[in-house]
Each structure stands twice: as structure tokens, then as C-alpha cells.
């Protein structure tokens, strides 16, 4: 499904100094895997996630999506990749504050030019799959609890039926109980619908829900292990 080869990402700070967020990371993720990328804050895991989501380019090294080098994609091809293949759950959710829940979830379908009627059906389905009650669909994001907002963000990532779901600290803002429900949602999506899921976390308990844990520290891969067979 996807492969990173020797990926390096260097940031140039305002005063001209360089900071290496990723120092040559390589791994492969197969179709249908549920992978957790774990590491303390500042380890470069978010940067890695952005590269996997085709939101950012590596400074050197290569990222292959379905055996194609993403560096060769044009801007529009990148947009198509993000639109059709990848669902991204942001740490900050990034919902549109002035739009209702259902409109937020339908937004990717607007860019995919899905018919209006179908949009609503698919958004409803995605929101149900993410576990949000139907009575909340017409609310605005600021009228929802943290867990509910998280579900909306997940539903938006699901609505395009992406083959790859990327979630950046999906439980970071949640209490343990809601966090667990969200993680179970991911597990269900992985097991019942066979979607490839990559999530980022700095908590070991969260990582344990995944089938495989990739540990990163200071921009380098330190461990890659299956949690259960």
C-alpha cells in the first residue's frame, strides 16, 4: 500500500538554523493493516503523518503510494489523491465553525462532485459509522462535546470511502472512556471494512489497540513490532 524510504525532513527556522525532524525513516505498510506510530512529542511523528497524507513533501528520500512516487505527482494529482484515497483526522479537528455537522462531513463530497442527494446519504452513513447520534447532525461544532467533535472529524475522513485513514492523536483531547470508544470505532473500521489505518499517539495503551506499533524517537525509527498475531 505505502512505503517510505529513507525519508528526511529538514525545517529551516527563522534565524537560518536547520532542524531535522526526520532523519531517514523507512518502513512499509500493507493493505488492511492497523498501525500505530508512537513516540514522545517532538519525535517527528506528526511530520511523518503529513508526509503519509500527501500534505507535505520529504526533503530527501521517497514516499510511494501504491508503488507510485508521490514526489512525481502534480499539484492536481496530489489533490485527487487526498480527495479519493486518503481520509485525514486532524489533531485539531479543523472543522468549519460556521457550518453544521452534516455540512462539515459533506465537504469532501462537494469537492468530489458527488450528487447532492447522495452526499447526504453518505454523510449520514459516515456519521453513524463514527457513532454520532442523528440528533446532533444539524448542530454546529461549538455546540458539541470534545468526543462528539472527534467523531465528526472521523466521519469526515470516512465519507469518501478512503483506502487509507490517517489519524493524528485521535484521542489526545478525549477522556479515557470516550477515547476508548473512538479507538474501538477505528478497530471496527479496520476489521469489518478492511481499511488501512495509521494513527499517531504518544500513549502506549492507545498504541496497543493497533496490530503493529512503529516507535519513533528524535526522528529515527527505533522499533517496529506486531502487538499480536
Amino acid at each position, binding site marked *: 500500500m505505502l512505503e517510505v524510504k529513507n525519508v528526511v525532513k529538514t525545517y529551516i527556522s527563522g534565524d537560518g538554523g536547520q532542524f531535522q525532524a526526520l532523519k531517514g525513516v523507512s518502513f512499509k505498510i500493507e493493505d488492511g493493516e492497523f498501525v500505530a506510530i508512537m513516540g514522545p512529542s517532538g519525535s517527528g511523528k506528526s511530520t511523518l503523518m*503529513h508526509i503519509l*497524507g500527501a*500534505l*507535505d513533501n520529504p526533503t530527501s528520500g521517497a514516499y510511494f503510494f501504491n508503488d507510485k512516487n508521490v514526489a512525481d505527482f502534480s*499539484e*492536481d494529482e496530489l*489533490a*485527487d489523491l*487526498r*480527495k*479519493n484515497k486518503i481520509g*485525514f483526522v*486532524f489533531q*485539531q479537528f*479543523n472543522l*468549519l465553525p*460556521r*457550518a453544521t455537522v452534516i455540512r462539515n462531513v459533506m*465537504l*469532501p463530497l*462537494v*469537492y*468530489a*462532485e458527488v450528487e447532492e442527494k447522495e452526499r447526504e446519504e453518505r454523510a449520514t452513513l459516515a456519521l453513524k459509522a463514527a457513532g454520532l447520534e442523528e440528533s446532533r447532525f444539524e448542530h454546529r461544532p461549538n455546540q458539541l462535546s470534545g468526543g462528539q467533535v472527534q467523531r465528526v472529524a472521523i466521519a*469526515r475522513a470516512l465519507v*469518501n470511502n478512503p483506502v487509507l485513514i490517517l489519524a493524528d492523536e485521535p484521542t489526545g483531547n478525549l477522556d479515557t472512556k470516550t477515547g476508548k470508544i473512538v479507538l474501538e470505532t477505528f478497530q471496527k473500521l479496520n476489521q469489518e471494512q478492511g481499511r488501512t489505518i495509521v494513527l499517531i499517539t504518544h500513549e502506549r495503551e492507545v498504541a496497543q489497540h493497533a496490530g503493529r506499533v512503529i516507535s519513533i524517537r528524535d526522528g529515527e525509527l527505533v522499533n517496529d513490532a506486531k502487538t499480536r498475531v
Partner: protein
Amino acid sequence: MKTSDMMQETYMALSANKARSFLTILGIVIGISSVIAMIAIGEGAKGTIQNSIQSIGSNLILVMPGAQRGPGFQVSAGRGSARTLTQADADAIIKEITLAQAVAPEISGRYQVTAKGKNTNTSVVGTVPAYPAVRNIQIDQGDFISEQHLRGLSKVAVLGPTARDDLFGEGVQAVGQVIRVRGIEFKIIGITRTKGGGGFGSQDDMIFIPISTAQKFLAGDSYVTTISVQAKDSQSMAEIQQEITGLLLNRHNISDPQLADFNTLNQADIVAAASSVTQTFTILLAAVAGISLVVGGIGIMNMMLTTVTERTREIGLRKAIGAKRNEINFQFLTEAVALTFLGGLIGVILGWLISFGVTRLGILQTKVSLFSILLAFGVSAAIGIIFGYYPARRAAALNPIDALRYE
């Protein structure tokens, strides 16, 4: 992204901040409405001036005495005061210029006129029966001067309504009464209809008498002050003007047209000259209004730049879920154009109301032209595109991850 979605997104974005959208639109509204109103007022002024020129007659060529200049001498007598046109010239024009429909020579002068103890100083015009047809004058009461009056050197007069009011008072039956000019009694045989103030002195404040009488008793010679020649149609005017010039040069034995002792004035030229003056004014007014349009456009750009900055994260998100650069570009451009278009629409209505008000208050007869409305819409849409282009491009060029990280 579909067009209907684009419209909906635009509506949501603009209605999210109604006060700001309204204030931004206001600049365009003021600009467009003043352009519409200024052009309407300018067109109205042009129409009024053209009407007043047309009111002195249609397809008219005026022949007037000029200053006679001898070769070498550059001493010039006052223009129009020269007495170089004679009754014989007028007769020659009547005879030779076959293209002319009617010819009306006149001799005019200002005299003190008295009637029953009242008196006024007014213009006394000696002329011929063709005069009313040529100069667009209508008779209200009685008759105009006839051929018999001409031949018989009759002492009869036709009064303009203002002259009548000055001498006899309003609504008084003046026909049949008597006025005195230079001690000579004239019997009033008619009153002309009110024309309103013309561009060349009021034709209402005039007294008409037979030209033969005027030459014999008032002027004492056979010079004329103006010969009005009416052409059949506007096409033949230039040709008639040429022929008259040729004929008179020949009669006055002048070989060099530069030294002509008379002037011919083509009415079309007067109209064109007056039109070009009002045209210049209209352009001036519209240019001033145009400046406010540019200021309004900068207001749009300012708002769009603010919007792009405020919505940086939103733009990042849209790109992250698959929006293409063009779609972002188009969305922000649509917002800018929607603002200016709305402003243009309100501006057209407001401008139309202003010019309607000006007409209603009787200040000037204004005319809102379709052209100015189309121009206003074109300009406002163009302003939207020009001033929206840069902010939209800036938004579209944002890197999704940088945009998402923006605080």
C-alpha cells in the same frame, strides 16, 4: 466543485460577516451610483442644450456679416457689427441657391419701444413671411407679416409673448393696439407662441416687423444682419453652405476665402460644438465618480485579503480534503465578484433614483442610458476580478500544511 456549490459557499462566507460585507459593498455602491447619476445628468444636460439649439429652427445655416479685412491691414471691425450683407445678397441667395428650402433675411436692432406710457428696450427684427417656418416660430394670435406688408412698407408688428407682457401686461388683448418705435407707430397684427428661453437669447422677447419697413424707417439703409437659410435635410447642409460661400465671395469680389467678410454658421456645427462641451463635462464628472469606484475596489481587496488571512486554516483544510488550487482560487474570486456585483446592482438602483430625483425636482431632465448601466455592471465585475485576483491567488497558493498550522 459544482457551480451551485460555489454559489452556496459564497453565500455562506459573505453572510457569515454581514456588517463587513455591507460596508465593503458600500464603496462600490457609492462609486457605481455616482457614475450612473453623473452620466444621466450629463446626458440630460446635452439633451437640453441640443433641444434649445434645435428650437431656433432645423437644418439651419446662418449667414452673418463678418469683419472686412483688407490685405496687409490687420485692423478688424467688431464681428457682426460690420455691414457687409445687403438685401441684394439675400435676394441672390433666394434666386441662386436652389437647394435651400426657405431663406429669411433679417435686420435686427435694439430699440426703445413704447405703448400707452409703458416702455421696454427690446430687439426689433425686420424680416420676411418665411421667417416663422425657418426659425421654428409659431403664431398664437393674429397673423405673421405677409408679402403685402413687405411690398407696402406697412407699419405692422408681431410681438413675442414676453414683449407683449412687458408692454401691455399679461393676458391683455394686444392685437389691434399700437406701439411706437423711434416715434413711428406700428399696429400689432399678431402674437407669437411662447418658446421658452433659447440658447441664443429669448425669441419670446422680440418684435417682428416687415424687413422693408425696418430698412426704410429704422435702419435707413438696405443692409441685413442675418440671413437664415433652411436646408431641405441635414445631408444637403454642407453643400448649401459651400454654395452660399462661393456665391457671396463672388458677389463681394473676394478671391481668398480667408478674407471673407461674412461668416456662415452651420447648425450641425453648433450642435456638435455644444455636444462636445457637455461631453467633456460628462467625462469629467464620470471620471470623478470613477475615482470613488477605484477606492471602493481597494476596499474589496482589503476585505478579501483580511478574509484570506482569517480563513487560512480553512483553506488548508479544504486543500487537505482534496480541493484543487483552481477551486480555491475560484471560490475567493467568486466572493469578490459577488460583492462587487451586488454593489453594482444596488448602485444602479441608487443612481437611477438619484437621477429620477433630479428630474422630479425639475433641476434637469436626466436620462439613464442602458449603456451606462451596462458600463457600471461591467466595471463592477471587472473591479471584482482585478481586486479579488491577488487575494484569491494568495489563498490558492498556500501550502496545505503551512495553512493548517497557521495561528
